[in-house]
């Protein structure tokens, strides 16, 4: 293992640890220590509601979208310094037969982070991922249930600059690890659901970043589709966008199907396909 990789692994661990702390201690005034970054980020509820109307109608046309109540909950830090990598947790009620989840950062230029289409091998419950947040924004989660209803919930997240923030790594290092796929799984106690975290190394360049030292914008190159299958049965297909963080990391739970072999296929916007298979967990 090279030093860079070790460093990277550590960074990822710290990222998740920090998320754990931020979510475990919701009473802590995270915003209080961020005065400098938060200059005058004020919320105008009317403006935000209008913005959501615009985004919602662009995606769902005139379809009614109802309040999700307890069916969908979003957890996120009030303020996050690393705006290109803001942690979001979505909790879904497993009893509601949810077939898809769309996640939005309303005020991003590409507001739709992605759409998860859940398959039979998905254990609908908790999903964690990282998004880019360009400015103070509502984050919306909209689910579709089997009967075609749309249910929505939202919360505010403060961050700034996520879209233009340069990638954390050096170009050479990024290319070297491009397309590496990891799947960490927790062995289930009862042999059923498997809590997993998928990480795909990809810069998800959005076309608005300049790398340090360079004087031109990095052309866009980002993951468009991430498919996960267990024994050939779909866990989820994710249609993703530039609003997903670099090195996308997605936590989810699946129910092993067929021979239990996990297959991950990721396709980026210039047509590169990355595939990796993981053996079934031994019983």
């Amino acid at each position: 293992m090279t030093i860079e990789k070790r460093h990277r692994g550590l960074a990822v661990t710290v990222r998740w640890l920090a998320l754990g702390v931020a979510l475990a201690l919701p009473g802590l005034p995270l915003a209080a220590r961020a005065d400098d970054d938060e200059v005058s980020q004020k919320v105008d509820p009317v403006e935000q509601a209008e913005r959501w109307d615009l985004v919602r109608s662009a995606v769902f046309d005139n379809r009614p979208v109802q309040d999700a109540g307890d069916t969908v909950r979003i957890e996120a830090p009030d303020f996050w310094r690393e705006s290109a990598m803001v942690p979001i947790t979505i909790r879904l009620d497993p009893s509601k037969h949810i077939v898809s989840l769309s996640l939005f950062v309303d005020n991003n230029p590409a507001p739709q982070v992605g759409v998860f289409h859940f398959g039979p091998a998905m254990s609908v419950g908790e999903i964690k991922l990282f998004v880019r947040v360009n400015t103070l924004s509502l984050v919306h989660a909209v689910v579709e249930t089997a009967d075609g209803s749309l249910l929505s919930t939202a919360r505010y997240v403060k961050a700034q600059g996520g879209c233009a923030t340069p990638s954390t790594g050096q170009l050479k290092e990024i290319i070297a690890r491009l397309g590496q796929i990891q799947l960490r799984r927790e062995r289930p106690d009862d042999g059923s659901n498997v809590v997993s975290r998928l990480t795909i190394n990809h810069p998800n360049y959005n076309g608005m970043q300049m790398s340090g030292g360079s004087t031109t914008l990095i052309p866009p190159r980002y993951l468009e589709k991430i498919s996960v299958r267990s024994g050939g049965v779909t866990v989820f297909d994710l249609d993703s966008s530039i609003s997903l963080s670099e090195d996308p990391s997605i936590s989810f739970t699946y129910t092993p199907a067929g021979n239990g072999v996990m297959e991950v296929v990721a396709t980026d916007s210039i047509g590169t396909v990355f595939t990796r298979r993981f053996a079934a967990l031994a019983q």
Partner: protein
Amino acid sequence: MRTLRLALLLALPVLLGAGVPEASFAPEPGGFRMDDYNAPVPETLAGARVVDAAGVAEAMTAGAIVIDVLPAQRRPAAQPAGQPWLPLPRMEIPGSLWWPEVGRGGISAALDAWFQQRLTAVTGGDRDRAVVFYCKAACWMSWNAAKRAVGYGYRRVLWFPGGTEAWAEAGSTMQKGTPEAVPVGE
């Protein structure tokens, strides 16, 4: 549990990247700010005058040119059909010019030349014409752009670090901006 919570509390500043000084102002660097633009800015800019919203209004009345240097959103090529592209409108100081990208730390020779040519054009070549630079609050790009203009020999450069947030807070009107096309080819 209590001990664990305390341990987490103590670890929190480290985890969240604190240890960064909480001072409101950053020291003025010798060169340009190269990255991490959304951060506390210096209190000063050598060769330029720092102004607040009232100072900008006053300068405009006296004929100053006002330039917004916030980068513009750029739609990625080949964005999949069905994915919305809805950049927020940029509300800026009425009468501003919007020159994206000229406040980056490193700019190409082509962009540098474009910046100089546009400045010459809008000032009529008068290096004593007042020129105000701004973007958002706590953003180094306006600092960089203003510093660049000082370097080009403009003698009445004004830097408005409060940016559009401070302008809005002062209750002044704003208008939707239109970015000029700048050479940022790949």
